[in-house]
């Protein structure tokens, strides 16, 4: 919506709502004028030259003008309404979907009794809503429709493009396990580096967690891939396929190991300091006589913990 000059667009065209931005509108008017002149001149001249081979040159010029001016007018019209065509094109999937659903509803309501209509609607809506995988697919594809518009909002609102205000071509989108993947073809004035600094803002606009940008083509820097992440899969448990290729009933194969029995600190001798009262009280130590590494049992004369601590600090 243009707020800067509402009188100029909305006022003149008797109550119509302006949907084209002022900048785009001005650029469109200039382009249309240029397109009209160029087309009219070129087509007119060509037509005149061709006509001159069979009729009088003056008549040929008139014929050229008669052909050139209407052709120029057609091109002028096309360029002038191009922003509207573009807008319609952006909403084509939603428009088609809406028309199909509405038509189906009207046809159904007209040709079946109310009860049948309601049952059919309940089935069409209820079955996908009840079956989880189907519901997820529907929601995922719904997000694909939404996210293309959100990306366009990003480009139009805060990513400065070129002087004529042309937006990148937002191509198709498809769901991924974590969100959506959208392919975008950049127009002159933008690059992947420009966008990398704005990923957080794009994520906010797309109602997503994070957004990643990668080049979709090695040969063309304009062709990008936007990965919009809404869910985190890296916290999931990932199994290994190796488990599936083995037979878990295979006979156990393990070479015998010598297991040491000195499994507690007091079981191990101190290598350098040799004090007569080192180690814990004998009561706390299990199976002191069976230490595998030949460590001597803790001295049973160690009467109290206090003695122990003192000796450790010496």
């Amino acid at each position, binding site marked *: 919506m243009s707020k800067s000059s509402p009188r100029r667009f909305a006022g003149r065209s008797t109550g119509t709502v302006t949907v084209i931005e002022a900048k785009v509108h001005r650029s469109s008017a200039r382009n249309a004028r240029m397109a009209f002149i160029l087309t009219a001149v070129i087509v007119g001249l060509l037509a005149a030259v061709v006509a001159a081979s069979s009729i009088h040159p003056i008549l040929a010029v008139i014929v050229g003008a008669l052909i050139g001016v209407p052709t120029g007018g057609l091109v002028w019209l096309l360029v002038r309404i191009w922003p509207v065509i573009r807008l319609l094109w952006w909403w084509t999937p939603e428009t088609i979907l809406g028309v199909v659903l509405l038509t189906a509803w009207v046809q159904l309501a007209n040709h079946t009794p109310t009860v049948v209509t309601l049952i059919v609607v309940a089935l069409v809506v209820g079955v996908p809503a009840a079956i989880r995988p189907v519901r997820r697919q529907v929601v995922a594809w719904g997000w694909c429709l939404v996210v293309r518009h959100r990306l366009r909002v990003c480009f139009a609102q805060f990513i400065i493009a070129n002087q004529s205000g042309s937006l990148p071509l937002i191509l198709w989108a498809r769901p*991924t*396990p*974590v969100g959506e*993947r959208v392919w975008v073809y950049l127009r002159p004035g933008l690059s992947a580096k420009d966008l990398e600094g704005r990923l957080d803002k794009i994520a906010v606009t797309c109602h997503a967690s994070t957004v990643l940008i990668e080049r979709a083509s090695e040969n063309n820097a304009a062709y990008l891939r936007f*990965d919009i*992440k809404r869910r*985190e*899969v*890296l*916290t*999931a*448990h*990932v*199994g*290994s*396929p*190796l*488990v599936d*290729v*083995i*037979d*878990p*009933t*295979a*006979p*156990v*194969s*393990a*070479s*015998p190991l010598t297991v040491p029995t000195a499994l507690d600190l007091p079981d191990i001798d101190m290598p350098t300091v040799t004090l007569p009262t080192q180690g814990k009280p004998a009561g706390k130590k299990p199976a002191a006589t069976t230490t595998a590494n030949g460590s001597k049992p803790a001295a049973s004369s160690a009467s109290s913990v206090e003695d122990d601590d003192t000796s450790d600090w010496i």
Partner: protein
Amino acid sequence: MTTTIPTTAEAVPVGPGLSMFDPIFIGIDEFGQPVYLDVIYRNLLTAGEPGGGKSGLINNICGHAALCDNTRLVLFDAKLVELGPWRDLADAFIGPDIDQGIDVLRRLLVVATNRYAWLLANRRRKLADGDGMSVIVTIIDELAMFSTVLGTKAQQEEFSTLLRGLVSLGRACGMPVVAATQRPSWDIIPASLRDLFGYRAAFRCTSLNSSNIILGQGWAEQGYTASDISPTNQGAAYLLAEGGVPRRIKAAYLTDTDIYNIADYAAWTRRPTISTPTVNPTEWEMAA
């Protein structure tokens, strides 16, 4: 290799037909797509803080290698338990014994040198799948134990030097090295050794600097830092491999039971046939 195998096996072991020349499944990326790694012509360094999931990744690779045809394992694990389940399959399993480790590395270097002589004689530069030569996968867990803790200073340096030789030579002759450590800074692993590892996996770190040490300078500044991995999300990592840009992955997790089941099965498929007990085991080794 001593294995105790029951004489009455009910089924016939069938190898799963994997090869080290196949890409190894190691987990999923942040889009839920599977991630495969070609370890055969690359060396992989995994690092990160304790409990980050390094051993999970290493066990995936080890499990794949164990189930592969014509593949030998050389395992270094000062902690014993991470690679211990595969000890019966491995041609060498080195525990906390640096002398033994140095001996094995010397043997591996001789093998590598001989293989290059063989390649030269065959007018080749790289080992290929159809050569029939075994792939020798060296897997080292807790590399820092061998380079800083065990043995004398001279032994540690010798270990690092020999390992550098193996990492630089092993790539083209089918002897890849996979190493894991916690923080591969210069005081723990020589920078000259660290930089030879082409693939890097950075599990959770506490600082940007630690992440940069693993992945390479400059990645943290571009937003690829392992310090933003949640400490509760074990197995999540940044993997710098094909593509040239680190990507977030989640390594597949093998439970202890899975690991032992795979190890048992691999040992079963690799055993010499029991029905021919008259054959001398040394002949089998020669045949292998």
